[in-house]
């Protein structure tokens, strides 16, 4: 039983990280209706850039700041080159465009910083928390805890940003109805840039956390793939959904790995979340927290 909890908690903590990636998607989807497949690439790019600057001798915070600046630039570029020309195109087209974008970003990243794995140290060791170990004997990583703490903080900040600030409300307005947003004089372009910057920021944080954990490497881009089932479970346009979805996926995949894995030869977390999401989709195509649409004729 206690083992179960250990796995569960581990899963949940990993889940928080997934939610973090998913969050990036949700932000952009809410504001621009774009399913940004490049989010993974952005995570990779952000992390790699930070590490890159550090390796060039920049102090950590400066490196982060610079990386953020780069992400801002990227956001502007994306809005100008990708989103604006494709405005009012079918979502699926934009989706494919972001696949292109992710290739582009990956290419740039490796061209600029090289393709080999870099280590990143945030100063938090990835080791069990003693007192918890002593009391319950459960192995819970400090790092994971800290990471999820940061994630949680970030999420709540965003929550505030969305619900309290003017811009935040503007974003939601755009998400709900582009026309209306324009009517009340909110410039779509501006909103998009802001959203992509925010997403870039989230990507940066995610990149740092994951990078510190597994090393900064191309594999980070696959986080996007991890995030997809999360999104499907949570619904593409719900921040809360993203978080809950992340937790579910994290937990379920770890549990599945541990309890089902052995019977089928393991390694099932590569597809299990998808299977889960798929089943879920068939039952409820609009996700846990997504809004249902009726298409009229």
């Amino acid at each position, binding site marked *: 039983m206690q083992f179960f909890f250990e796995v569960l908690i581990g899963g949940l903590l990993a889940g928080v990280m997934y939610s973090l990636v998913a969050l990036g998607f949700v932000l952009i989807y809410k504001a621009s209706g774009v*399913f940004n497949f490049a989010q993974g690439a952005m995570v990779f790019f952000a992390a790699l850039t930070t590490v890159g600057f550090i390796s060039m001798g920049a102090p950590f915070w400066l490196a982060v700041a610079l990386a953020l600046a780069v992400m801002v630039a990227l956001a502007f570029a994306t809005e100008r080159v*990708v989103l604006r*020309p494709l405005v009012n195109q079918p979502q699926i087209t934009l989706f494919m465009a972001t696949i292109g974008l992710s290739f582009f970003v990956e290419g740039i990243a490796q061209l600029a910083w090289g393709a080999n794995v870099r280590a990143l140290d945030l100063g938090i060791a990835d080791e069990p928390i003693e007192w918890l170990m002593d009391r319950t004997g459960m192995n819970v990583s400090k790092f994971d805890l800290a990471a999820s703490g940061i994630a949680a903080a970030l999420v709540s900040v965003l929550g505030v940003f969305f619900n309290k600030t003017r811009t935040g409300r503007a974003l939601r307005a755009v998400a709900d109805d582009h026309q209306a947003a324009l009517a009340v004089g909110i410039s779509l372009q501006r909103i998009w840039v802001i959203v992509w910057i925010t997403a870039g920021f989230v990507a940066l944080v995610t990149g740092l956390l994951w990078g510190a954990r597994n090393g900064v490497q191309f594999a980070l881009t696959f986080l996007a793939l991890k995030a997809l089932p999360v999104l499907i479970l949570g619904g593409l346009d719900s921040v809360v959904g993203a978080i809950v979805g992340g937790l579910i996926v994290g937990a379920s995949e770890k549990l599945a790995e541990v309890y089902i894995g052995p019977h089928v*030869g393991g*390694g099932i977390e590569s597809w299990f979340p998808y299977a889960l999401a798929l089943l879920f*989709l068939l039952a409820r195509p609009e996700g846990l927290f997504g809004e249902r649409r009726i298409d009229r004729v």
Partner: protein
Amino acid sequence: MLYRETGQFKTDYAADQQLFPIRQDRVAIVALLVFAFAGVPLAAATPGLAVAIDFNYWFSGVLIPFLIFSLAALGLNILTGYAGLLSLGTAAFMAVGAFAAYNFELRVPGMPMLMSFILAGGVAAVVGIVFGLPSLRIRGFYLAVATLAAQFFVVWALTKFGWFSNYSTSGVITAQKIAVFGWAIDTPVKRYLLVLAIVCVLALAAKNMVRGAAGRAWMAVRDMDVAAQVVGIPIMRTKLLAFAISSFYCGVAGALYAFAYLGTVEPAGFELDLSFRILFMIIIGGVGSILGSFLGAAFIVLLPIFLDLSANAIERSFGLTLPSGLVSNLTLIIFGALIVFFLSVEPLGLARLWQIAKEKLRLWPFPH
């Protein structure tokens, strides 16, 4: 300009419905086929040329992969371009084809090679139908995600269950020697011809389908499914058919990929990245166009080669060594950029550009 259509009138529907209604097109296509089937092999057989050009490289490194990818792109185009169902699992269906063919050859004594290719396609089709089932309820990129599930699951299954790869380590399989009607396909030229023949036949079949009732049903579902249903098109059957046919093509492509191109493949060789490359082929080549599938494949296959060559040329001529991975990263960047470019500027891809050019030629000297 080159088109002289005056006097090419049609006195029955058969003539009006034919594949290439314009005489000049018929001539051109025949010429092209002759060149591909006879010209190229003959050139390869000509001693003089054979010295000048490394034909083995051209066959195994360029033409064969080009043809195979064209076939895969054709399959994806049927699903995505015509039926409007985006799939990111193309590589998975290719993998199914490859491993199925391998196993048919392995386990069914005296199984004719072509037969196992066809059956491989069949197996892929079945898998395709299974993973297509969600398309009945979900649309857009939700569906794309569903196909991703296929992508991961298949690769995982092929790796995990040794049976598929006859218990080789990490699921690597080595394709059996190809023989068709007792004729050993053992040289690049022969393999090229075999692939070419198969691709031509399947391309023709595809063309016939898309211009026939099936194709119309697919496009109808793509353009407006409610209306399609109202005119009496069975949505479910139409979509599943698209998945089946598409997967069949990908399956055969996969089989050829293993048997006629690489020889040795492993499940990891059919990663998501491959699916993406094939998706790019149809985006660049032309969504919803048979010709586009070929153009796109040619482009995606040739671009890296071209970059490589030019990189080498630069290195040689300037005596400098370019950073490793430069070319591969450049390729990524260019692909990415092109995708965005085509999607926003010419969503119907190279095929559309060709079509426009053709229209201009037909109206020459007038602009319109």
